[in-house]
């Protein structure tokens, strides 16, 4: 675990390659780590996130399952309770609903229900989010479902480096983690990623850009358009701080509040629908912890309250640079 060494060797990886690299590293490190899911083995996964793992670790540790999300999740809970470290892939996060019962009723509650005697130390990985020209199940972002369930941790990376480190931390975590991978940026850009394994601590946000006028909280694929909007707004004299939450449960309220106290204004950008989305939770946190610092209503720049639309409407549904910039201006000019 050489987290911050200067001399370590790196590879220039995309986000999805960092998933693969992270899985490989953890499987080498711990024989109890088992990857399972639909076509994750021989085929290497529909998004290639498990490519080559089957060749390196074989049938026993890279398990091709039937199309049976409930069975996959439930089996993973059983494996985890008996000491293995399953990393179950759901092919798309929209396919997770049959598995929802096992995740919510069992994975999330095993520790509490058994008063700490059993835990389900497992990871459920799924590509999530929109922007790939496919409707509904293939594009939606339902992170709030999982955040709402006590006992689950929810992680959404936005960079290749974080992906590998957060995935490793999730696998080593003693509790169940829902690890949602923004597939829009699976191959959008590359970053130097250390060859060695390392962890990025769960529950810690990253300030991607420091600013003094407004704090913008976001995660996953929305981080990039938010940063781009921040760059544009700099020319208008608006100094934007961008906070990438990275872990949505437990949420890093300390960083959120600290940033807000500095700027007094905020916006939240997420691609999930507005109502019941996590923007509301972040705003409530600000209200509770920093009300007297507040200078303007907090803007919610989000997807709309409709099923994720197809193709022609997708570009309107997803917050993009211009809409993010509009929302930020509104909060700043209030």
């Amino acid at each position: 675990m050489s987290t911050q060494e200067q001399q370590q060797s790196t590879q220039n990886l995309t986000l999805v390659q960092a998933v693969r690299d992270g899985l490989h590293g953890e499987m080498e490190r711990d024989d109890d780590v088992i990857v399972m899911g639909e076509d994750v083995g021989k085929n290497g996964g529909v998004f290639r996130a498990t490519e080559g793992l089957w060749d390196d670790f074989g049938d026993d540790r890279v398990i091709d399952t039937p199309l049976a999300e409930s069975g996959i999740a439930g089996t993973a809970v059983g494996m985890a309770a008996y000491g293995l470290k399953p990393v179950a892939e759901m092919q798309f996060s929209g396919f997770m609903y049959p598995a929802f019962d096992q995740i919510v009723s069992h994975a999330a509650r095993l520790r509490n229900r058994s008063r700490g005697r059993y835990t389900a130390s497992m990871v459920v990985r799924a590509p999530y989010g929109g922007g790939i020209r496919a409707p509904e199940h293939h594009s939606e972002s339902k992170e709030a479902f999982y955040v709402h369930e006590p006992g689950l941790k929810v992680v959404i990376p936005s960079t290749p480096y974080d992906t590998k480190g957060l995935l490793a931390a999730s696998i080593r975590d003693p509790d169940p983690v829902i690890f949602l991978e923004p597939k829009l940026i699976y191959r959008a850009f590359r970053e130097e990623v250390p060859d060695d394994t390392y962890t990025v601590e769960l529950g810690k946000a990253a300030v991607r850009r420091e600013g003094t006028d407004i704090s913008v909280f976001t995660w996953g694929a929305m981080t990039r358009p938010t940063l781009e909007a921040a760059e544009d707004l700099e020319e208008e004299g608006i100094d934007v701080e961008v906070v990438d939450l990275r872990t949505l449960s437990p949420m890093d309220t300390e960083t959120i509040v600290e940033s807000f106290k500095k700027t007094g204004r905020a916006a939240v950008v997420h691609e999930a629908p507005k109502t019941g989305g996590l923007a509301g939770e972040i705003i409530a946190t600000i209200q509770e912890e920093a009300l007297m610092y507040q200078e303007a209503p907090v803007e919610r720049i989000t997807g709309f309250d409709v099923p994720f639309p197809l193709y022609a409407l997708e570009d309107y549904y997803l917050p993009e640079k211009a809409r993010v910039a509009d929302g930020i201006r509104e909060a700043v000019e209030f």
Partner: protein
Amino acid sequence: MVTIDIKAESGQREMLRRMLTIRAFDTRAGELFADGELPGFVHLYIGEEAVGVGAISALEPDDYITSTHRGHGHCIAKGLDTYQMMAELYGKRDGYCNGKGGSMHIADVDAGMLGANGIVGAGPPLATGAALTASYKDEDRVALAFFGDGAVAQGQVHEGINLAATWDLPAIFVVENNHFGEATPVENQHNVEHLSATAEAYNIPGFTVDGMDVTAVYEAVEEARARAAAGDGPTFIEADTYRYKGHFEGDHEPYRTKDDIDDARERDAIDRFKTRLVDAGVITDAEFDDLEAEVEAEIDEATERAQDAEYPDPSEAYEDMFGAHVPEIEEFAARVRTDGGERQ
């Protein structure tokens, strides 16, 4: 009255035409996807035409079907319009879902088509519900669920079958065994040689038919429909078939060889049915060629019209969310109308 009477020569020609239409439609859809014309994901039915056409032809026109993510063939066999289908694939307003559903969600309830389905295994319980409704209303209608071999691993498939069997509902369960659940061979997903063995657990008739023989599928479903309509409950039919294309367009198919596909093509459903009809004097080679050309022309026209059709307006995203008026949704719609044109 069955949808298509297989005993009549005109019926046989119509079944051939529908199989050719499915192949032409999906061949075109594959080409358009490769050209970057079609968005999202496209799953093609090429190779499996005999299952959809054989099964649906033996139903009555008012009967219900539920479909799958590989649903274009079921739509065409059910008599849906190829232009409205193609428009939906393009995400255009004229499509069956007004451009909001795409390839995997085409539905036409009036035609008894309860929907393609992006979720593997979601259809059978819906068919059970439709069958229960027919039974409750004492209507002579049955519901047939198509699903793949991969779906047989899904719990909700079994829940749907168990309910229909226990309640003696007029349902028919047709598993299209194309030998791969996505990229995994059927033998690695199930512990039975024939998926029709599933029927035993529910104490309903179950059998395996040659799913690349349209007549065999027709006869099996004809019998199942008679049983369902008589109040004797559901039947489980496994149609042994093969998909010639990948799970989705763009699938690099490491799980099989070209020889495997060529072997399956030896039993091609269209070739076999054509030969049978030519031998029986129902159709000449020249008439077959004309039929193929007619079908091609239909798909050409459907494609051109779909390309020229309009996209839905962004504000239409908010239509059809609830039956009752929801003011908040109006606010959202107004916001999008203001934003209109700022797409990047």
